[in-house]
Structures are given as structure tokens and as C-alpha cells.
């Protein structure tokens, strides 16, 4: 068995096969990434309005705004759908498609790949019509019996279904590669990508079933009612593991590329595989921890889902160890020393690197808060309060989004052959994003503990019941302004780069493939963990065991109720 060092890998990639300048995946990945960032741009521009609402400042009454966005809830729906669903999925479909293909040195069927991109974009455009015309202001959880326009459900379902085609193509190419290289261990980046796609394909089934069986026929008027509890349960089947679908692509960069960016090596290749195998196994059967307070769901099943949720913390804790070790390795190679003194020797002037380290730091707090939410006892205090948006803005909003922003700072120049515009502004923007989100998190967690509700236009309340929350409200308001500045700075860099001239084929911006201190050579664990299809099957069985006893009684005792289309 031969293993190439990253440099040799680079060199083999310089031969014309499936690589370099003419690599057709480049343009496709660029389209996915840029479409994602356009969605993020629109989404984050609405964000400060939400933050100011939680500072008791209501800008939604401004006539100039009212002509565009009818209500706080329409703005919130757009903000959530564009940032959390559209941006993430498009970025991931570019990133976690390009990287494994390049890692395996293969070119997938490009006609199929472009067809998927076009259909996914069409899905967004279809869903955009009701979203922009206030016909689907049902927030990104769209709990029935609130009933949006059928176009919203059809567009969203098409978009999500296309992500399965991307994932399917990656898994298919990996199977082909395995058949051609039966004795070899899958390269690490591909391993992480395939495990994540397999997890997502299983995870998405809940949402796919909710959309195809329940929401679309009901919104088209083909059936008269819907069972809101079944719909909500299917939603959370997908709704929780989707956060791992957002997080793991960032982990791929933290494990696979950041060590090289820091000048060091990945701590352990086999342990990285173990973490991803664990995610594949236990990411999905955890959704009931969003439904601790729902009636008519067995308490024992809720407790089992809670245990499994705690178990998903283990691979994340492994990641914290491993990634920090590789950064330390890099810093020591760059001349750093001491117990913590090495931290100063990290490449802090590199905005791409810094963004991702800050994303990691935010996730220490985000992950800890997540464990609070997962615990049934503490969840009852923070459930549906402002604590929750506080939590997910330092997880998906920072750990994921700031990592993706950081990745884009080298990935877009690599894909397009354009030079990064205003690198110093980029560095400023990622620090500002980090601090903005940290301040936001303080304000929102604090408001949540005082009982302030999430998703409520508290700046327009008829009665004043949050008199005790003025301090955290001010903090939240400040964060909105900081984040607006951060976003404008970041998108100046991003669009500045895209609008600049192409100066090369992009290959001068090398992919930072990392070496490992402990490699997968002679690793029994790495060899055993090659059995991804078996792990995938085990994950299906586990989901059957943990969701069967929940869904079957619900379906047998279903109770259909009519929909409501005119409440917003």
C-alpha cells in the first residue's frame, strides 16, 4: 500500500487527470459556494432588525421597511431560512463535493452534478416566491397547522432532495473507488465526507417524509387535515441531526486542513475516523430532546434519546482534543513553547485560520450550552426562550458559519484564480463577527434565563412583562450593530474578490492537505472503520429502534386537524 505525502499528492494532482486548472469540479463548486453566500448576505442583512427587536427597538414599523418586509415574523422567516437552510446546504454541497472528488482524484458525472445544482437553485427560487410575498411566514420550523403556500413546501423539498443527489454522487464515487482499490484505506478527507453524507441521507428522511406525505398534499388541499404531532416529530428527526450536517463539514476543515494552515500536523488520523464513525452512528436518533414537553410521547423514549444526545458529545470532545493538539504541534514547529505560550505563535494574521480558531472557541460555549439543552431537567427552564437563539448563533451562526467564511477566504481564490481582496479587512471582519456573536450570545442567554420568549416581537408588546431584562436587551442591541459592521466588511472582501480579475488558474493557492502524526498505516482501527456501509446500516437500525416506538402509536392514534393560512 502506498501513501502519498501531501506534497506528492499535490504533484500527482498537477498531472492533467481530474485535476488542476481544467478540473471541471472547480466551476461547479464555485457556483454552489457563491450562491450560498448570496443567500447568507440577504439573510444577515435582516439579522440586525431581529437583534434590535430584542433590544426593544422596533424598526419593522418604518414605512420604508414595511414596503419590503410586512412583519417581524416574515423577516424572521427569511433570516432563518436563508442563513440556516439555504446558505449551509449550498456551501456544503460545494465544499463536501469538491474535496472528496479531488481527494480521490476522480471526476464525477458532471452533467448530473450540474443538473442537481440547477434543480437545487430552482427549489430555492420556487420557495422564495411565497417567502417574499408573505405567503409562508411560518418560520423555518413551519410547524403545522400553520399552513404556508404549497410553493414553499415544494421548493424546500426540492432543495433538500437535491442535497441527497449530491451526497449520493459522493457515496457512489467512493464505492467505485473502493472497488478499484480494494486493499487501500480511504483517504481521510473522503472518509469524513462520505460518513457525513451517509449520516445526512438517513437524517433527511424525516423531513422528506413530512414534506411529501404530509405537508405538500395538505397544502394543496388534497387532504383536509394534518396531525401536527406527527409532523413535528418527523421534523425533529431531521431537525436535530441537521446541526451535525452543518457542523461536520467545518470539522473536516478543522481536522483535515487547519493543521497545515497552522504549520503542523493532524494529531491522529485513526482517531479522526473514529469520531466521524461515531457521528454516523448516533447523530440521528436524538430528535426527541426537542420534544421533552410534548404530550403523548413516551417518557422512556424521551430518556433514551437524551442518553444518545449526550453520547454525541463524546466525538465532539475528541475533536476538541485532537484539533487543539494539532494547533499546538504547528505552533511549536513555528518556534512557540511553554504551557500556553505557544498560542501566540499561531498564524493570527491569516484571516482564514483565525476565523476558524475563533469558530472553535465559540463552539466551546455553544457545545456546553447544547448539553444544557439536551438535559430534560434544564431544558424545561430554557425551552423556547431567548436562550435558544443565543445558543444556535454561537453554534451554527459561528462555529459553522465563521468556519465556512474562513474556508471561503482560501477556497474561493483556489476555485476562481482570483486574489483575495483586502485581506486585512477580512481579518477585521472575522474578529468582528466573533465578538458580535459572543456579545449576542451573552445578551440572549441572559434574556432567556429571565424568561424572555424566543421568536416574539417583544418590541411591539402591548404589556411590559420583561422589565427585568433591560441590561441584556441593551447588550443584544449592541451586538446587532457589531454584526452589521462585521458582515459589511466580510462581504466587501468576498464580493471584492469575486469581482476582481482572474490572475491564475487558482492552483497557486494550494489545498492545505495535512499530514498526520499518527497515520492510518498499520492502524487496525482505521481498517475496521472502513466498514462504513455496515455502520450506516447499524445507524438505520438504531433509528428504527428509537423512532419506531414513537411514531407507530402516533400514526395509529393520528388526529387530523385543519390548517390556518391567514394568521400572519
Amino acid at each position, binding site marked *: 500500500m502506498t501513501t502519498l505525502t501531501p506534497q506528492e499528492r499535490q504533484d500527482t494532482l498537477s498531472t492533467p487527470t481530474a485535476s488542476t486548472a481544467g478540473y471541471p469540479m472547480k466551476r461547479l463548486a464555485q457556483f454552489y459556494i457563491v450562491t450560498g453566500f448570496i443567500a447568507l448576505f440577504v439573510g444577515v442583512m435582516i439579522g440586525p432588525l431581529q437583534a434590535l427587536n430584542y433590544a426593544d427597538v422596533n424598526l419593522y414599523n418604518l414605512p420604508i421597511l414595511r414596503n419590503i418586509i410586512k412583519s417581524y*415574523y416574515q423577516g424572521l422567516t427569511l433570516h432563518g431560512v436563508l442563513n440556516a437552510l439555504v446558505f449551509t446546504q449550498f456551501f456544503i454541497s460545494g465544499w463536501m463535493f469538491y474535496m472528496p472528488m479531488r481527494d480521490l482524484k476522480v471526476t464525477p458525472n458532471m452533467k448530473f452534478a450540474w443538473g442537481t445544482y440547477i434543480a437545487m437553485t430552482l427549489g430555492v427560487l420556487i420557495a422564495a416566491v411565497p417567502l417574499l410575498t408573505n405567503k409562508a411566514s411560518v*418560520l423555518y420550523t413551519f*410547524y403545522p*397547522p*400553520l399552513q404556508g403556500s404549497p410553493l414553499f413546501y415544494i421548493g424546500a423539498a426540492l432543495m433538500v432532495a437535491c442535497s441527497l443527489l449530491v451526497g449520493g454522487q459522493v457515496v457512489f464515487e467512493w464505492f467505485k473507488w473502493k472497488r478499484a482499490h480494494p486493499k487501500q484505506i480511504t483517504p481521510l478527507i473522503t472518509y469524513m465526507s462520505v460518513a457525513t453524507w451517509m449520516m445526512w441521507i438517513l437524517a433527511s428522511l424525516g423531513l422528506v417524509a413530512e414534506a411529501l406525505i404530509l405537508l405538500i398534499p395538505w397544502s394543496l388541499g388534497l387532504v383536509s387535515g394534518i*396531525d*401536527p404531532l406527527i409532523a*413535528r416529530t418527523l421534523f425533529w428527526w431531521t431537525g436535530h441531526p441537521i446541526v451535525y450536517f452543518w457542523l461536520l463539514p467545518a470539522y473536516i476543515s478543522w481536522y483535515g486542513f487547519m493543521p497545515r494552515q497552522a504549520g503542523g500536523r493532524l*494529531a*491522529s488520523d485513526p*482517531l479522526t475516523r473514529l469520531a466521524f464513525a461515531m457521528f454516523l452512528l448516533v447523530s440521528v436518533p436524538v430528535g426527541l430532546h426537542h420534544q421533552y*414537553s*410534548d*404530550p*403523548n410521547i413516551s*417518557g422512556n423514549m*424521551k*430518556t433514551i434519546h*437524551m442518553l444518545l444526545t*449526550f453520547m454525541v*458529545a*463524546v466525538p465532539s470532545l*475528541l475533536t476538541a*482534543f*485532537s484539533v487543539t*493538539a494539532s494547533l*499546538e*504541534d504547528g505552533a*511549536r*514547529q513555528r518556534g512557540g513553547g511553554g504551557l500556553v505560550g505557544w498560542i501566540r505563535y499561531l498564524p493570527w494574521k491569516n484571516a482564514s485560520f483565525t476565523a476558524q480558531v475563533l469558530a472553535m472557541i465559540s463552539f466551546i460555549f455553544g457545545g456546553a450550552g447544547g*448539553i444544557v439543552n439536551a*438535559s*430534560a*431537567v434544564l431544558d*424545561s*427552564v430554557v*425551552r*423556547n*426562550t431567548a436562550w435558544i437563539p443565543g445558543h444556535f448563533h454561537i453554534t451554527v451562526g459561528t462555529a459553522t458559519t465563521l468556519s465556512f467564511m474562513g474556508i471561503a477566504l482560501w477556497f474561493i481564490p483556489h476555485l476562481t484564480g482570483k486574489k483575495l481582496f483586502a485581506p486585512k479587512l477580512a481579518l477585521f471582519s472575522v474578529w468582528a463577527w466573533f465578538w458580535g456573536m459572543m456579545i449576542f450570545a451573552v445578551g440572549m442567554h441572559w434574556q432567556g434565563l*429571565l*424568561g424572555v*420568549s*424566543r*421568536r*416574539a*416581537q*417583544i418590541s*411591539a*408588546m402591548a*404589556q411590559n*412583562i420583561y422589565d427585568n431584562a433591560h441590561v441584556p436587551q441593551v447588550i443584544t442591541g449592541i451586538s446587532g450593530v457589531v454584526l452589521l459592521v462585521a458582515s459589511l466588511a466580510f462581504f466587501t472582501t468576498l464580493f471584492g474578490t469575486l469581482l476582481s480579475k482572474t490572475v491564475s488558474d487558482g492552483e497557486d493557492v494550494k489545498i492545505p492537505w495535512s499530514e498526520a*502524526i*499518527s497515520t492510518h498505516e498499520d492502524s487496525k482501527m482505521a481498517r475496521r472503520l472502513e466498514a462504513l456501509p455496515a455502520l450506516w446500516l447499524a445507524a438505520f437500525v438504531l433509528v428504527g429502534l428509537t423512532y419506531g416506538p414513537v411514531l407507530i402509536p402516533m400514526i395509529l*392514534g393520528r*388526529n*387530523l*386537524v385543519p390548517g*390556518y393560512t391567514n*394568521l*400572519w
Partner: protein
Amino acid sequence: MLDHDKLQNAENIWLGVAVVMCVLLFTGVVASFLSGTFPLVSGGHASGIASTRVDPKNLAVTPFAKPGLRQEGTENELFMVAKVFSFDPAFVRVPAGVSINMHITSADVMHGFYIQGSNINLQIVPGQVTTLRYTFKYPGTYNVICNEYCGIGHHNMVTRFVVTPPTK
């Protein structure tokens, strides 16, 4: 430079610590169920979530026809209906120190039922009844907030519980 053996050793210790931490967390929550701080498993406020279903269009034939607090035998039963954008009854007076069975349902869409500053925080689903048993310990006025998005007037869906001193 870090070397392989040293790292692997530290990794294994860390993996052990991570697993122990997660097990302890789980044990802690289960201990809380058993001790009654949040009694999900044996008795108490979350255990009584009953498997009751109703037709939200025909609440008139259910106990929800006349929402409010009433005594049935030795039990205090409180029936409440959440609907856009208010609770019925709009105002509830309950005595402290008395165990109350609360039954809440929705006449239309999803709602929340959250007693500000407490851990009574429930999902109200049309067609289903959310039931819990609770004893208010301290007299006072409590805001009860709908904390599940239900439409344009969602933020104004607030009611009050007035807990009166126990009658001795």
C-alpha cells in the same frame, strides 16, 4: 513537536474523561427525575401528560367547554384553552400549597405555555391535551406566556396566574 506515543496516551485519558462526564450528566438527570426536582419517571408534574386526544373544532363536548379551575372529588382540575392570541380563561386564581392538575389544549395552531421564571414550559398541540400536576409554593402574580410562534399577534398572547396565600 509532539510525538505519537505521548499524544495517544493523553488521547485515551481524554476519551475516558469525556465518556465519564457524559455518563455522570445522564445519571444526574435521572437522579433529578427520581428525586422529584423534575419528576418525569415517577409521579409529579411531567408524568401526568396523558394520552388524551380531542377534536379542536368540537371542544364543546369535552371538559374544555367550560375552561377554568374546579374541584372534582378531592382533585383540583384546571382546564385551559389556548387560541390565537389569548388563553381562556384570561385570568386564573389558584391557591398556593394545593396540588393542581392542569390540562391544556389548543383550539387552532401550536402554542406554548410557559410560566415565567419557572420550569413549567409546555408544548400545546391542537388535538392533544397536555397535562401536568403542579403545586404552586409561593403566592404572587405570574406571567404565563405563549412561547411557540402562532401568528402575527403571538407576542401579545400573555395571561396571568394569581397564586393566593394558602387557606389554613
